[in-house]
């Protein structure tokens, strides 16, 4: 992804949901994108699949999948890419499955629309195989979404996502509504299927603990900008950007009891962002340059990028 800019047209003027976001993803790599609400992380994920609907629109930027710029594809060509090469696992809290059709139908209709010619029997077999690979009993194929628990619904979505052996899986807060025990089982399933497929995973979320334990590299977004992106171990050992540092410090931990380091100030409103670096009103190290010009992302250490005037 190079310099992606997504605008939302509102009665109060165009709002930049993501602003010049760039990053690269290796084959089979697990990249985490962490950020709080309004940071633009979900918008960025939907932009990759070109699913931004009005009033939103992709204003600028390129998204390369190996040697193809997705922005240049025709709508029909882009449709072919979805699921076959880039698949989405939706948010856990949403009702992402069609409430009135059985699970097997929702797997087979994806295969059919990607011109996969298989007989009915082969279809049933493929469905059973997919459900088993995500730890679901074969009977689930004939059940309706309302008959499944939260965890089972997410596993069904994972089964759908991997049905065409995609190269990239985007998981947008896949376990946000699940209990912590079920979350672990779902994430273990995701890890296993990713290894079997050798696919790359982009995990979008706000749970820093989940990021620490699952991803290889972590990007942190704030007010539509990618403020830092580094290997996950380095981020937790020595975070570069002040926001990342304060975010990690605010997390409840089992070591330091009774200490509370919140980040003062308010979350920024995308429609009237402060000049210069968007974080400067809340940043304890802010100095005059931070209020004037916007910091550019620079490679501070090999593989670690951050955009902050301090560095």
């Amino acid at each position, binding site marked *: 992804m190079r310099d992606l800019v997504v605008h939302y047209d509102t009665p109060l003027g165009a709002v930049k949901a993501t602003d010049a976001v760039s990053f690269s993803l290796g084959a089979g790599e697990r990249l985490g994108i962490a950020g709080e609400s309004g940071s633009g992380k979900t918008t960025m994920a939907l932009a990759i699949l070109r699913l931004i609907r009005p009033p939103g629109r992709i204003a600028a930027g390129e998204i390369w999948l190996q040697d193809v710029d997705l922005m240049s594809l025709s709508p029909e060509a882009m*449709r072919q890419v979805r699921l076959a090469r880039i698949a989405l696992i939706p948010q856990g809290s949403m009702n992402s499955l069609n409430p009135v059709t059985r699970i097997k139908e929702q797997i087979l*209709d994806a295969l059919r629309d990607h011109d996969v010619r298989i007989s009915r029997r082969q279809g049933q077999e493929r469905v059973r195989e997919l459900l088993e690979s995500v730890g679901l009993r074969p009977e689930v194929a004939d059940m309706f979404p*309302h008959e499944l628990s939260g965890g089972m619904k997410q596993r069904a979505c994972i089964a*759908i996502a991997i049905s065409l052996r995609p190269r990239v899986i985007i998981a947008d807060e896949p376990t946000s509504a699940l209990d912590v025990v079920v979350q672990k089982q779902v994430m273990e399933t995701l890890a296993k299927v990713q290894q079997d497929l050798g696919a790359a995973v982009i995990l979008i979320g706000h749970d820093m603990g989940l990021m620490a334990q699952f991803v290889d590299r972590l990007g942190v977004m704030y007010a539509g900008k990618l403020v830092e992106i580094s290997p996950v171990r380095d981020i937790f050992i020595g975070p570069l950007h002040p926001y990342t540092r304060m975010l990690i410090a605010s997390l409840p931990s089992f070591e330091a009891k009774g200490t509370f380091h919140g980040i003062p100030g308010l979350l920024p409103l995308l429609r009237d962002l402060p000049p210069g670096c968007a974080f400067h009103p809340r940043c304890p190290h802010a100095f005059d340059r931070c209020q004037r010009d916007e910091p550019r992302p620079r490679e501070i250490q090999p593989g670690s990028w951050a955009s902050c005037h301090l560095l």
Partner: protein
Amino acid sequence: MRVDYLARRCGVFVLIVWIAATLNFFLPRLSGQDPVRTKLLQQAQLGGYVHSGIDAMVKDYDRRFGLDRPLWQQYLSYLRDAARLDFNYSIANYPRKVNELIAEAVPWTIGLLGTTTLLSFGLGTFLGALLAWPGAPRWMRYLMPPLWALHAIPFFLLGLVLIYLLAFQIQLLPMFGGYSAGAFPGLNVTFVWDVIRHAILPAMSIVLVATGGWALAMRGMMVTTQGEDYVTFAEAKGLRSLTIFVRYCLRNAILPQTTALALALGNILSGAVLVEVIFGYPGIGTVLFHAIRENDHFLIQGIVFTVIVALGLATLILDAIYPLLDPRINYRRT
């Protein structure tokens, strides 16, 4: 689970039938004196060749519903009659039985009402769905304002306008009645064609108005479903827009539309009664109109009871169909 859902629906139906009979019995007695009896006596004094029959009827009426009899006994005998669908003789067209008159009129109303309701529901739902589909042709958008305006007018009003334009001015279609005066009813092509020509205007006045309503409702529902999460995920699955439109949006938007149909049956029928009166169409509506004009209580009560029961049945059928469309119904209690 489905059985007790249906059992409850049948219970509601039986309740509706009981209420129809009770309304018929108690409402006339609201004003203290018994209007049915006064009408009978008036008819008896008229005399004429049917005199003797009317006298017998008055005696029989007094025997069963005489004011000396306790009210609940009268009520019980009325319920027994209603259960046997026996509504006595029609006072105005004695010696013809009320059931005969109703039986003659019912096919016409079912023909008119059945076809127009299904036509307007089907057309309206399809049109509404299409209007919400981004892939729909551009000119469809200009269809919205006229549908809006038509939807606000009562059926019979449009009926009057249509009669004036298409029947009176251009004489394209017959203006009145169910079939030409001289035609001899029979299952031959000419008679059937004659009936159809007579039914076109009444049918049009219902369909043009009702279709707008269904289209508006469906379009609203389609717009809501298009915003649902399972549609976003369907797009992310790379499904063809037609698959998404039919199997994800339409399939879910049709549910509230069916419920709305069940609720709207009562109003549709009330509107149709007036259309029949305006067109002199030989259905239940016109028979009711004449019965009212001649104060023929037995005929009025017979028609009201039959129509309420028929509507209760139609609602029951729709309720039975609904779980087939929505699998969640038999899972959780309604």
